[in-house]
Every structure is written in structure tokens, then in C-alpha cells.
């Protein structure tokens, strides 16, 4: 190419610098600044920020609500992984290997909730759980189980488990499609060989399908962990605002309340640091446990 070195660098700078500046100002700087704020007592007015060293972290470790929020987050992570992975694996296998003519219909329908706004999903499910009008209680009454009806989101024991269903409902489609992508890449010859050896469908699933889609399963689980720890507070904020009596507060919704409702910005930032650290540790640990020899037949 006939280009002087200077022109080359100029073009490179044109491509990279403006974007990187924006990224630095609106992503990198706030992240590092958040870390910095976590050492301050600060209610918003810029002059009033007071350096207090590790006091926010001491408060974090003695705050009684914090362990509950962590537990709630991991409760959602675990139940979502179980619910989503079982259902989406079942659906993915059914739709790829059972010769179902109307498979595209299910694919299109199951995926749709993935692109619905969390606000819409949350409000829809608030009505489904509505004590007097909702589908859940009406259904239980219809089945003659009046004793089981309750104010699902207003009940301290049931509010958190009630949040799992909307998340699973909204998540299935994406993971089902990821797994279907993995399954359709498995060579048919494995199944034919297994067929000749007389392996049952169940054996084929455990010995062929599952090991060969393990990469997709692993990615799905990590993705559920990351999106839950980084985003579970959205559905919490829409559906329960952390209530009743903090029974559904997760780390992110607690951060929101401390920082943007009570104006404890320094302490809010400390909770943010905790979220960052916990999600990085969790991802690393999971990556270690799910590493598995790559299967090749």
C-alpha cells in the first residue's frame, strides 16, 4: 500500500482513539472511580466526601442485611441454573432428535420472552401472582387447593422463590437454542453406531449428546451466573423492590437503595466492589470445576 507511516498512524488513531476515549470516560473511569469512592463517606455533595479508609468495608462485614442479599443472589443463581438447564436441555434434545414437524414453532415461541423487557416480564408476573385475580391462585382454587393460595410476592418465605419462575420463563429460549446449535453439530454417525450396538435413547443421551455439548452447557451455566449476579436486581426492583421486609433484596438492589434512595454513595460503591469481586471469584471457581477433558470420539 502506498501510504506514509504518518498517514497510517493517523488512520489508526481515527479508528481507535475517539471510541476508546468514550469507553474510558463512560466505562473504565466510573469503574475505577467506584473503587475509589468505596473508601469515602459521601452523601452526594462533592465537598462533603470524607476519607474514612476501610470503614465502609467494616460496615459491610457487620451489616446484617449483606449476608442475606448474597444468599438471595446465589439462591437465584442455583435455582435458575437447575430450572433453565433441565428444561432447555430437554427441549433442545426433543426438538433436534425427535423429528417434530412443528419444531420451528416451538423455537420461535420459546425464544420470544428473551427479548421482552424485564419491566414487562416483571409486571406480567406480578399480575400472575396477584393474590385475588392472579393465574396462580385461580389455578390452585380450580384444582381444589385453596389452602395453598397465598400472596406470593407479599409472603416473606415465598417472595424469593416466586422470582425464579419469571426468570426461568424468560431465559429458556436462548439456552435451548445454544444447546440446539451444539447438538446439531454432533455427527449423526455416532448415533448410528450406538444404534447398532443397541444403546437405548437414554444411554445415547448420557454417553453421546451430553459429553459432546458440554462446551455449550458450560458456557450456558457461566452466562446464567454472570447475568444473574450482574442483573438479578432488575427483576427484583420491578417486582418487589427488595421487600417484603428485605426478603428479596439482592446485592444490586441493596446497592441501589443505599446509594440512590438513602444517598450513602460511599457505602453503595463498597457494595458494588463486593459484587464485582464475588462475580469474578464465582466465574473463576466455576470455570475450574467445569473444566473437563475435551471429548473426541
Amino acid at each position, binding site marked *: 500500500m502506498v501510504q506514509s507511516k504518518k498517514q497510517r498512524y493517523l488512520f489508526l488513531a481515527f479508528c481507535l482513539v475517539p*471510541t476508546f476515549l468514550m469507553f474510558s470516560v463512560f*466505562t473504565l*473511569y466510573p469503574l475505577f472511580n467506584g473503587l475509589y469512592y468505596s473508601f469515602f463517606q459521601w452523601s452526594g455533595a462533592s465537598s462533603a466526601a470524607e476519607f474514612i479508609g476501610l470503614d465502609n468495608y467494616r460496615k459491610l462485614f457487620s451489616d446484617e442485611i449483606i449476608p442475606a442479599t448474597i444468599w438471595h443472589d446465589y439462591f437465584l443463581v442455583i435455582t435458575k441454573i437447575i430450572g433453565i438447564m433441565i428444561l432447555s436441555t430437554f427441549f433442545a434434545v426433543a426438538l433436534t432428535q425427535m423429528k417434530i414437524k412443528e419444531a420451528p414453532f416451538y423455537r420461535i415461541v420459546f425464544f420470544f420472552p428473551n427479548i421482552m423487557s424485564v419491566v414487562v416480564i416483571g409486571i406480567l*408476573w406480578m399480575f400472575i401472582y396477584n393474590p385475588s385475580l392472579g393465574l396462580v391462585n385461580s389455578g390452585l382454587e380450580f384444582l381444589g387447593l385453596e389452602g395453598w393460595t397465598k400472596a406470593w410476592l407479599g409472603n416473606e418465605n415465598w417472595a424469593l422463590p416466586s422470582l425464579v419462575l419469571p426468570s426461568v420463563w424468560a431465559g429458556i429460549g436462548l439456552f435451548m437454542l445454544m444447546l440446539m446449535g451444539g447438538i446439531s453439530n454432533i455427527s449423526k454417525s455416532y448415533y448410528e453406531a450406538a444404534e447398532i450396538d443397541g444403546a437405548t435413547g437414554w444411554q445415547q443421551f448420557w454417553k453421546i449428546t451430553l459429553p459432546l455439548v458440554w462446551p455449550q452447557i458450560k458456557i450456558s451455566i457461566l452466562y446464567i451466573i454472570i447475568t444473574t449476579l450482574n442483573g438479578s436486581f432488575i427483576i427484583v426492583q420491578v417486582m418487589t423492590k427488595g421487600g417484603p421486609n428485605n426478603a428479596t433484596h439482592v446485592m444490586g438492589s441493596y446497592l441501589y437503595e443505599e446509594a440512590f434512595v438513602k444517598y450513602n454513595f460511599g457505602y453503595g460503591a463498597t457494595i458494588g466492589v463486593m459484587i464485582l469481586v464475588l462475580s469474578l471469584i464465582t466465574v473463576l471457581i466455576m470455570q475450574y470445576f467445569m473444566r473437563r477433558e475435551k471429548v473426541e470420539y
Partner: protein
Amino acid sequence: MKREQGLWTKIGVRIPLVLWSLAVLYPIFWMILGAFKSNAEIYSNPWGLPESFSFANFFDAWSNYNIDISVFNSLIVTGLGALLTLVMAIPTAYALERLRFRGNRLLFTLYISAMMIPMVLGWIPLFFLLMQLNLLDNIFGLAIVYAVSQLPFSIFVLTSFMATIPKSLEEAAAIDGMSPYMILWKVVTPLSMTGIITVTIMNMIQFWNEYFMALIFLQSEENYTLALAIDYISNETQYTNSWGTLFASLVIAIVPVIILYAIFQRRIVKGMTEGAIKG
């Protein structure tokens, strides 16, 4: 598979599939039907068909709850945000994919790892940064924040798409004396159109649906995006019980997404599964 599938297997496997389809579709249809019911009817017959279709709820949402302003705000934020993302992401994606320079891998890794970092921590300083820039409680400020937040995903999809374009066309254009700027604008951008459209649809859906950043960075009602307006109506509904109006506003929010999904179903699915597979 050659194994004969018995009738019972065929039926048995369809039961969960049909049940899940109902679980997905029924609430959505029911929400749409509810938007056409009067409040009295929602109470007397919450899960059935409406007796007569009435648009009263839509008028109520539109005029009494100022949904019109929120729709307008959401359109601005969505359109501007998506455009801004492209302006920032296309040149960077091109440089990362095609140009050799020191730190190329490092920069790429930096952008991609930002997809896995919880941004909640950054939202507190961002709040004050926007305040200093006079962009707090401002839909243009929100559009900028949205655009930057989708940069990593957009760069990721665009670089992997640009990697599939043959280099020969760029080389031919360079031999013809085209400047690199013109090559980027006249050759690479049109050739990447499929990737650009995928990224843009994904970003638009994301921005249209987004709730939490809007909740933090917008304050006055006249700046509310649709998600905030709906949340506001939802909170009011606890006292007013005007469920019909709430459903009408949910329908207004979901219809554009349904339309986009109907047209671009394949692209959306591809974009989302690929975006997730970056692991």
C-alpha cells in the same frame, strides 16, 4: 435416528412442549386482551376473552399518563443510541480486525472482558459524571451511556463478521488509490451490512427495553422512557387499580419488539446466541 418412535413417545414428548408454549403465549395474549377490557371486566372475568374491544385504556394511557411523551423519548434514546454505537464500533472493529498494531490483542481483550464486568459499581460515579456534564436527567445523556454500554457486544459481533469478508476487495480499492477512510466508508461498511443490521437490531431492542440505567439517570417525568413510565403506572395501579391502563401501556411497549421479532427473527436469534457464546 432409525429407531421407530411409538405413538406414546410422540405424544409424551409433545406434552411438555405444548404446555410450555401455553405458559409462554397465554400470559402474553392475555395481557393484550386485558388492554381492551374495562376494569370491571378485568375483575369479573380476569382470564377470559373481552366482551367488546374498547380502546379506552389506550386513550387513558396516552393522554392521562403521558405515554406519548415516553414513547417519543424512548424512540429518541433508541435511535440515537443505536446510531452512536455504530459510529463508535465500526471503525474500532475494523482496526481491531484488519490493521496490525501493537496492543491489538490487548485492546480487543479489554473491550470483550468489559462484557463480563458488573457495571453496577460504575453507575454511582457515572451518575456524578453525568451531573457535571449537565447530562443527568437528559435523554441525550442516557443515549450516550447506552451506546457506550453496548460497545463491547457490538465490537465483538462486528469483528467476527468483518473477519469473513475477503481482503481482496479492500486491496483492490487501495491499489486504485482509495484512501483508507474511503475504503472503510465505501467498501467495508457496505460489505458488513448484514453484521451491522444484526448489531443494530439487538442494540435497539436492548435500549427500548432498558430499565435500570434509565431509573438511575433520569428523574423528571417529562424525560421518562417507556420502561420508566410503565413502572410508574404499575406503582400507581396498586392504589388506582386501573389494570386496563397498565396493560395498554405494556402492549404499547411490546408491539415494536414483536414486529422486529417477526421480521428479523433469524438475525435476532443468531445475534443473541453468538453474543452469549463469547463466554
